[in-house]
């Protein structure tokens, strides 16, 4: 149960590792903010922050210092406890859920084996869904605790939106779980190793020029999951929580300074969870296409000599690969925000309940029927048709 390690060395390393993952997450937020501002400027043909430091990178530090110097302000109408508790609570669900996502192959140092993730959880997906569903409280606490009607309306809209899209999100994952047959994220990643191969109906086909990624099995689920993740993290085109025209700024109308920044960390944290899960479910996680971790390990062993160095090299390379995929999805998040307009609230709800939920349901049914019939039935074609099919398959499976 308390699998934080067996020796005191392991426990210490694991504790430091969890803290490091958390701090890494907090650190990533200013970089993302910078990327978002520069990216939006690029898209809108402006400069963006470019004065402080090279490429404006030090702007983040200047912002943080400025936030610290803002005076602490609580409106008279506000409920002081909830007003202060909401930003602190905003940090918790996002960071803990992110820690369950594996980021690299386990690092083996002598006898000890360290996972490059906060903690390994064998019901990973359920854990992440459960923890991140607690984020609705942050919004409600902030909205009601501010004592302002704009905040309350913003909170109601945001939480109704979050819970509506949680349905589509949760249902789209059912197909993924069915494909891999596990809740464990690490097992899912190892299942995506090697070349794409379909087996069923009495046939086995290997397409060696494509990696065995989940996106080829569950394309509809990937689209629904990604779209619902936008709504879950309150990003454009679904950022109805903060429609300026009708709601001023949504549930954080009354917040400013550092407390506002903490809401930001939470929001970007949800974005990171979505990007990390997208990578893990559909794009092979930390795996490098065409190469197995063993190959990387052998390469390290041949070039560095010692086993420890090879293990460290292995983990580092896969960590890099994970971060490349991860950053790609974060960039898509930012790009979409600055290129798409906002939905209207009724359109948003219609999309969630009447479009995405039925599609996710259809995906589940089709997946289960395919898996079921692939195991029970085998199709046999007349020899002539089979020859033609083989020719077509040969075209796809050429190396």
């Amino acid at each position, binding site marked *: 149960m308390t699998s934080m390690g067996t020796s005191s060395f392991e426990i210490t390393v694991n504790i430091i590792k969890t803290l490091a993952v958390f701090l890494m997450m907090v650190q990533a937020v200013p970089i993302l903010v910078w990327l978002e501002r520069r990216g939006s400027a690029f898209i809108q043909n402006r400069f963006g922050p470019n004065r402080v430091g090279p490429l404006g990178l030090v702007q983040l530090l200047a912002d943080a210092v400025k936030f610290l110097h803002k005076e602490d302000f609580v409106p008279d109408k506000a409920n002081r406890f909830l007003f202060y508790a909401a930003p602190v609570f905003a940090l918790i669900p996002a960071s803990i859920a992110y820690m369950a996502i594996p980021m690299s192959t386990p690092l083996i140092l002598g006898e000890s084996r360290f996972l490059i993730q906060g903690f390994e959880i064998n019901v990973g997906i359920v854990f992440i869904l459960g923890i991140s569903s*607690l984020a609705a409280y942050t919004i409600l606490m902030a909205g009601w605790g501010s004592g302002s009607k704009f905040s309350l309306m913003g909170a109601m809209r945001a939480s109704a939106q979050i819970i509506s899209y949680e349905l589509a999100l949760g249902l789209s994952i059912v197909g993924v779980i069915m494909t891999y047959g596990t809740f464990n994220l690490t097992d899912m990643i190892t299942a995506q190793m090697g070349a794409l191969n379909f087996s069923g109906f009495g046939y086995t086909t290997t397409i060696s020029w494509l990696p065995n990624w989940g996106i080829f099995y569950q394309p509809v689920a990937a689209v629904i999951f990604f779209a619902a993740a936008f709504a879950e993290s309150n990003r454009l085109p679904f950022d109805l929580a903060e429609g300026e025209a009708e709601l001023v700024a949504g549930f954080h109308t009354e917040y400013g300074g550092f407390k506002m920044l903490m809401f930001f960390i939470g929001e970007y944290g949800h974005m990171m969870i979505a990007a990390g899960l997208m990578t893990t479910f559909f794009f092979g996680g930390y795996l490098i296409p065409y190469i197995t971790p063993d190959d990387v390990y052998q390469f390290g062993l041949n070039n560095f000599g010692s086993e420890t160095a090879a293990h460290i090299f292995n983990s580092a390379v896969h960590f890099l690969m994970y971060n490349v995929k991860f950053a790609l999805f974060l960039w898509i998040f930012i790009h979409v925000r600055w290129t798409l307009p906002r939905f209207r609230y009724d359109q948003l709800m219609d999309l969630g309940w009447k479009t995405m939920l039925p599609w996710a349901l259809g995906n589940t049914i089709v997946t289960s029927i395919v898996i079921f019939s692939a195991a029970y039935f085998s199709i046999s074609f007349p020899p002539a048709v089979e020859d033609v099919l083989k020719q077509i398959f040969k075209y796809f499976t050429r190396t």
Partner: protein
Amino acid sequence: MSVDAILFWILTLVVLVSAMSVILMTNPIYSALCLAMTMVGVAAIFVTLNAYFLAGVQLIVYAGAVMVLFVMVLMLFDLKHELQSFSRGKFTGALKIGSVGILAGLIVGAVTIGKSLTEVKAVAENAVVVDTTKILSQNLFLKNIFGFEALGVLLLVIAVGTVALSRSKGGTHARD
């Protein structure tokens, strides 16, 4: 003390304190938030009992859905100004607390006496940590399939019922 024992006592403390706050807080919104905290604590207790999947379900269903609904309703109707949150009458109050105490004492006594009378099978003590999710799933879908389908129908009935209720005359969504 072993780590497991320390965890159990911490979780017990968290669960009992937040459950206590649920019934003692005069502001219903605080009560609801404390109850959400209790639910999270109960989920953690499920983890100590190796019921990982149930812990996740507890988080998703109770903490993430039911309590959000409670909090939303309380905030929608802003019941901050509650005049009388506890029942009146010192005598009846004492009687109620006394009866609750007697009930708790009876159960605790029964458990302790029962412990000395029967030997609980020490299966779980040395059993390896098994993935209970698959066993749960097999049991649910192979043995209790009728209950499962019945719950599906129940949920359908409830979904129809709530909408009909809110549509009825004087309901929240009445069509005037």
